[in-house]
Each structure stands twice: as C-alpha cells, then as structure tokens.
C-alpha cells in the first residue's frame, strides 16, 4: 500500500470498493423488496443501491424496524413478519457461506459429519426457507478452496441441482455470488457456477486456483465495472466514512 494521504481522496479504487459495487448490483432493478444483507460489505452495497439506482428498496435497522437511509422508521418487521416476507417472496437476501458448491448448495451449519461435527457453526438458520422462496445471493469475503468446494457437508441453502431433484424450483433463484476476487452466477451448463467478472487486479487464473471446482468460463472474462465518481463519494463520505470495508477485504 502507498502512504495514506488524508488531504486528497485516493484516486485508485480499492478491492473492497469493487466488492461494494458488485454487491450493490445484486439489488439493481429489484423494485420494492426488502434488501437483506448479511455482513458488512453487502450492507454497504445495499445502502449504495438504495442511494443510487434502486431507491425503492426496503431496509431494516437490524432489529425489528423498517427504516429509511437516515434511520427514520417506516414499518415494523419483527421476526414473525420477516419470515412471512421471505415466503411472500418480496425480499432479496445476500447470505454468507462457510461452504458453497458449483450449483449453489450452501452450508452454514457445521463442518464434517453432522452427527458429530468437527466444527459446529451456526446451524441452518433460515437458509432452507430462504432459498425456496426468495432470491438468495451470496457474499464470500475470502474466496478459497475451503469455501468453494466440490461438495458441502450440510446443505443449508438449496442449490439448483437439488432444487430440481426435489421439485422445488417454483420460487428458487440464486442471482449471484460475490467474492473478494470476482462475481459469479449460475448461467453455466445445468445452472452451474459461471465466472461473470473478476475485480481489477485479479486474474481468471487467481479465481480458478482459489475455487475447488471448475466454474464455467466463457470467452474473455470482463472486469467488474468501475464505480462512478458519485458512487465512490457515497461509499467514502456517506456510507462508510470510517473505512470499515477495507478491514473486511484488503488490497
């Protein structure tokens, strides 16, 4: 890293800022739905989307209220109503994943044998109901072969292959996976993972080396789009003036 200059804003866009942009894009053209970001960079992305190209998004305060960008309460969303919002479909969540496979099966429950796990994690939480009812995207802050695996240990969020096998595709949709290296979707063969873009500074080879299966790569893979000057200003001055984003994703 170069020496920080506090008097003029840095011209270069950080990796974390590309990640915020890539997360924000998940909620483009979503209309009047609840944006449910899990994690820091997805929540910056959701706020950026609402402040710019998706102003109709709904956000929560992390507890039981629907709030505007300035924190003004506009609605009530306790857990019981939140769960109805999920099954009603008016929500796009971006969850994390301890493991995710090529068809988007996700695990946040445990690592190893479920009967006696090597590492107990959160439990399945709402991943099963989320994936069958409202769009679910994923945010992976450290793209690695430990997370992108051939087979997940406990399917919490349902991927495309298993949704098809179980006949539950009616409202099943996984729009995108954003990592610190790039953006993927499920437009590969048989709804498998496809590399959509790499963040500037990352190569396709970097992504392939950090992925435990081979995602589809078609033609020249573009870079994740540049933020506009106004988006950069919003991220740096309004949404995350403390620079917390650069602690989650470095470089």
């Amino acid at each position, binding site marked *: 890293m170069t020496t920080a200059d506090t008097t003029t804003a840095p011209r270069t866009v950080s990796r974390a800022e590309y990640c915020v942009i890539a997360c924000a894009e998940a909620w483009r053209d979503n209309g009047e739905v609840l944006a449910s970001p899990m994690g820091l960079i997805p929540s910056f992305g959701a706020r950026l989307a609402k402040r710019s190209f998706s102003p109709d998004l709904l956000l929560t305060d992390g*507890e*039981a*209220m629907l709030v505007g960008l300035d924190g003004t309460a506009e609605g*009530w969303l*306790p*857990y*019981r109503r939140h*769960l109805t919002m*999920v*099954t009603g479909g008016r929500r796009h969540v971006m969850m994390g994943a301890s493991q995710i496979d090529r068809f988007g099966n996700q695990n946040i*429950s*445990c690592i190893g044998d*479920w*009967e*006696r*796990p*090597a*590492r*107990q*994690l*959160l*439990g*399945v*939480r*709402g*991943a*099963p*109901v989320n*994936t*069958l*009812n409202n769009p679910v995207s994923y945010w992976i802050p450290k793209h690695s072969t430990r997370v992108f695996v051939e087979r997940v240990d*406990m*399917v*919490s*969020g*349902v991927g495309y292959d*298993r*949704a098809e*096998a*179980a*006949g*539950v595709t*009616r*409202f099943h949709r996984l729009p995108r996976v954003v990592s610190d290296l790039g953006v993927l979707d499920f437009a590969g063969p048989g709804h498998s993972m496809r590399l959509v873009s790499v963040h500037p500074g990352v190569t396709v080879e970097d992504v392939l080396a950090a992925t435990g299966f081979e995602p589809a790569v078609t033609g020249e893979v573009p870079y994740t789009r540049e933020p506009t000057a106004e988006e950069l200003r919003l991220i740096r001055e309004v949404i995350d003036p403390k620079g917390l984003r650069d602690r989650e994703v470095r470089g």
Partner: protein
Amino acid sequence: MTDKSMTPEEVVGQLHSGMTIGIGGWGSRRKPMALVRALLRSGITDLTVISYGGPDVGLLAAAGRIRRLVAPFATLDSIPLEPHFRAARERAAFTLTELDEAMFMWGLHAAANRLPFLPVRAGLGSDVMRVNPELRTVTSPYDDGEELVAVPALRMDAALVHLNRADRLGNAQYLGPDPYFDDLFCEAADAAYVSCEQLVETAELAKSGPAQSLLVSRHSVTGVVETPNGAHFTSCVPDYDRDEAFQKLYATTPWTVFADRFLSGAGEHDYQAAVRTWHEEQQ
C-alpha cells in the same frame, strides 16, 4: 382471580427430568435467563429443549442437562457462534433436531392451534430432510399439487419466557420492538411460566404501552415470576441492552471457572450480586 406469582424455585419445582421445555426469546435477546439459572441450580436433567437458541442453550448444554435440542441455530448475536453449544455438539453430547427458522415457527403455530402439523415451503432439497428422517411431506389437495413439508407440532410440557411487565394473573407485556414468539411458546405448552422485569397492577399494563404490546394472556400462563434483570446477560429493551462485556466473559471463560464464580450461589440474588462485583472490578 388466581394470583399466579411465584419464585424461580417454585417454577422449577413444577418441572421434572425428561420434560420437553420450550424457551422463548431469540438468540441472545430476551431470554428467561433467571429461570434457566434456577433450572441449573436444580438437579433437573435429560431435557428436550425447544429454542431459537442463545445462551439458554449454551448454559444447559455446558451443564449436561440436554438430551435433545430442537433448534434452527444457537448464537450470541454479537458473537456469532455459541461456544458451549458448539463444544457440546462437537463431543456429540446431545441429539439434535435441526430445523429451519420458518419450519420451527410453523411447528409452534401448529402446537398452539392443536394441529398435528402445518405445511411449509422449506426443508425440501436441503439436508434438513436427511438429518430428520422422521419428517413427512404433504401434497396440496388443490390444483397446484405442490409438495410441502408437514412440520409436526412442537408441543411442550412447559414454556419459559421473559417479558418486560406482567401482572399477578399472568397477563404479560413486551415493550421492545419484537415480540419474538413468546405468545406462541406459551400457547404451545401444557404449562407456561412468565418471568418479568416488573410485576405491576393490571391497570398499569395499558398505561405502559399500546394494546398490542399485551402479548401474553393469562389463560395461557401457569405462573408469573418477578426477576429484575432476569434476562441478563441477554437484551431486554427498553429496560436494558445486552451486557456485551459480560457476554464476552461468558464466551471466553472455561465453563467450570464461569460456573464456579457466577452460578454456584443459592439463588438468583447471588448471581446478580456476583455480576455486580465483576463489573465493579472492571472499573
């Protein structure tokens, strides 16, 4: 009318080993911790615990009181992984019925409505079906013909919940933003015990908050206990926030050391005194 006020010890006196016990709140939020601590002081064990899990699950698991846990997660919220739940799972200390959050909610609704099950679009395609082979599905009898999971009713012998205010008859009020599922827990149980920050006259309830804050009604309540700071160290807004410093201590201290210092007293009063002393030492 019946005065249902009692002490935590009297509540626990009506519970037995082997029972199925539901615990209200969510994660590390408005948990009936004083009643859980009373359970810990008793010899009651071999429990089936039904909970949107937080430190209630962690404490009971660490103390070896759980035979089966029914839960979609266990978390301390600000600390994502509940350390004692985690440790207990990693030594296979209890049997787990791992359900999705919505499946769990519809299981409570089914129990409260005396239905055998309710259908839900969740679980299919996930390993929830693999690890719960007893789960069955139903097919919609209408034109859509959709296959849904029939979540069985989560009936319980007893429910423990904590609210902000209650009267001696068993009417109870939440003053924070989220009711969680405490009314359903009470209605899903054969006997429900409500602890509260403050016991008040019935007439005070309607003055303290709007009509819809009167979440739990006396017909579904067996006993009421006044336990100030009784949700500690979980949050009980607006009365108090989560005690983050103490929760961190709980999460980072070996179980026996923590239990010796904070849970070895004769009653809830001793616990609260030990917590006060610890906070004074931190200054």
